């Protein structure tokens, strides 16, 4: 389903219906997914449409710019050690259209569960999109329309064992890749002293040949300076 299409289009897959059809002088965009339907009249002559996974922080409302993944089991990391684990994350899909090679997002939708949480205290904390994931030692088999996976390199820079129960990521720095079977990201998590950690995404596909997503914050040309996140309210 992900990829670039010539307009007009009609896609029906896994309960999702997307169409951009000419209607008199304009184009009509329609999308249905899990009982939610959207209809928009496009006052332009779009030539291409692009569907790809984007930062999972836009639905049901763009309230947060961080993603908190709670681990289903507690992770103990050895002193001065680095280990790679796999986590899942919710997939949100954006529909872009283009008239002159520049893509603009017109719709986002998701088939994943929507929930928010607070990381930190109500005064200094941050509202995050919430997701609970098991910890996998290898790439888990997933429905790529609903879930993607993050290959997370956890590095313990301290001289003692560190217990980790969650990871918080800044959505502005997400680098999402996809192919016909999976959606993935790569990230680092450096555990530091005092119960803090630093997370950041790596601009590198999990497997050669995967396509880089056009992220929403890139498409909107937002200048993003902070891509890392410092977890200072506990692990």
């Amino acid at each position, binding site marked *: 389903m992900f990829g670039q299409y010539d307009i007009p289009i009609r896609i029906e897959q896994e309960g999702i219906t997307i169409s951009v059809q000419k209607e008199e002088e304009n184009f009509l965009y329609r999308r249905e997914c899990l009982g939610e339907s959207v209809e928009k009249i496009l006052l332009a002559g779009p030539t291409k449409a692009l569907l790809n996974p984007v930062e999972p922080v836009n639905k*049901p*409302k763009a*309230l947060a710019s961080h993603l908190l993944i*709670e681990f289903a089991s507690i992770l103990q990391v050895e002193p001065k050690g680095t280990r790679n684990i796999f986590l899942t994350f919710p997939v949100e899909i954006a529909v872009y259209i283009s008239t002159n090679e520049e893509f603009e997002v017109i719709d986002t939708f998701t088939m994943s569960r*929507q*929930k*928010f*949480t*607070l*990381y930190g205290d*109500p*005064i200094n*904390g*941050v*509202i995050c999109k*919430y997701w609970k994931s098991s910890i996998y030692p290898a790439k888990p088999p997933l429905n790529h329309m609903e879930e993607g996976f993050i290959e997370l390199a956890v590095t313990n820079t301290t001289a003692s064992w560190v217990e980790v129960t969650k990871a918080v990521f800044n959505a502005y720095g997400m680098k999402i890749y996809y192919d016909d079977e999976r959606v993935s990201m790569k990230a680092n998590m450096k555990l530091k002293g005092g119960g803090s950690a630093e997370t950041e995404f790596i601009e590198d596909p999990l497997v050669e040949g995967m396509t880089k997503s056009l992220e929403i914050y890139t498409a909107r040309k937002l200048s993003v300076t902070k891509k890392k996140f410092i977890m200072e309210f506990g692990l």
Partner: protein
Amino acid sequence: MMLDKVLYHSVTVFDLIVVAIILIIAIVITKALSLYLKRFLREKVTRGHLEILVKVASYSILIVALLIILPLLGVKLSGLLVAGGIAGLAIGFASQSVIGNLISGLFLMVERPIAIGNVVNIDGTVGIVEDIRIISTTLRTFDGPFMRVPNQKIFTANITNYAQNVARRFEYMIGIRYSDDADKAIEVIKKLIEDHPLILINPAPMVFVDSLGDNSVNIVASIWAPATEWFGVKMELLWKIKKALEKEGIEIPFPQRVVWFANELRGGELRDSK
């Protein structure tokens, strides 16, 4: 000597050089202070307010420099001070509230108990902060009208800022009949809370039997939501809870009294006479 040469009255070339040095020092201090203020307060106050603060600080230094320079240039301040003192007294009385508001405005800009767009309660007046100016602040109350509040009043008032924190808690008290299953009711409410996307996972919501009231078993639901969304969630959820409880056969009771009679009812006497 050249430096001792009198130019007019008792003002010498040396005095002029001192005046020039004082002016240069004052200008350098002004520039340095404005740079420091801009750097230090850049993230604490808005750009417009920062400009005002910098101007106030700069002009204050220049006025002090002027007061030092004038006697060196042969201007006697004693006469000016007498005239200025009387005028200042009059102006001071007249502009007491203006100055008070101005200073309060400066403190508000630095302390920032409220910001534009915040929902606040200032001494009982609830509204959205539209603008914070140097003398006054404007609020838009929820029924529409704009309200201008002098900064001095805001500075001394009790302020509740509903948007200062990123998350906010709200509570419902739901009464159910004594004959209903409270555990089942709690389960139904918890399910609704879990399914609502805007209710936060952490801090965790709490649902528990709070009290055994006169007419009902009272269940409290304590829920956290993002500060920008809490009111919408609060409005939406209560009716959903009511409908979900009713669907499970759990009802919210009316006030009721059980009345015991000391003697049997008159109906009983009539039955006996037959």
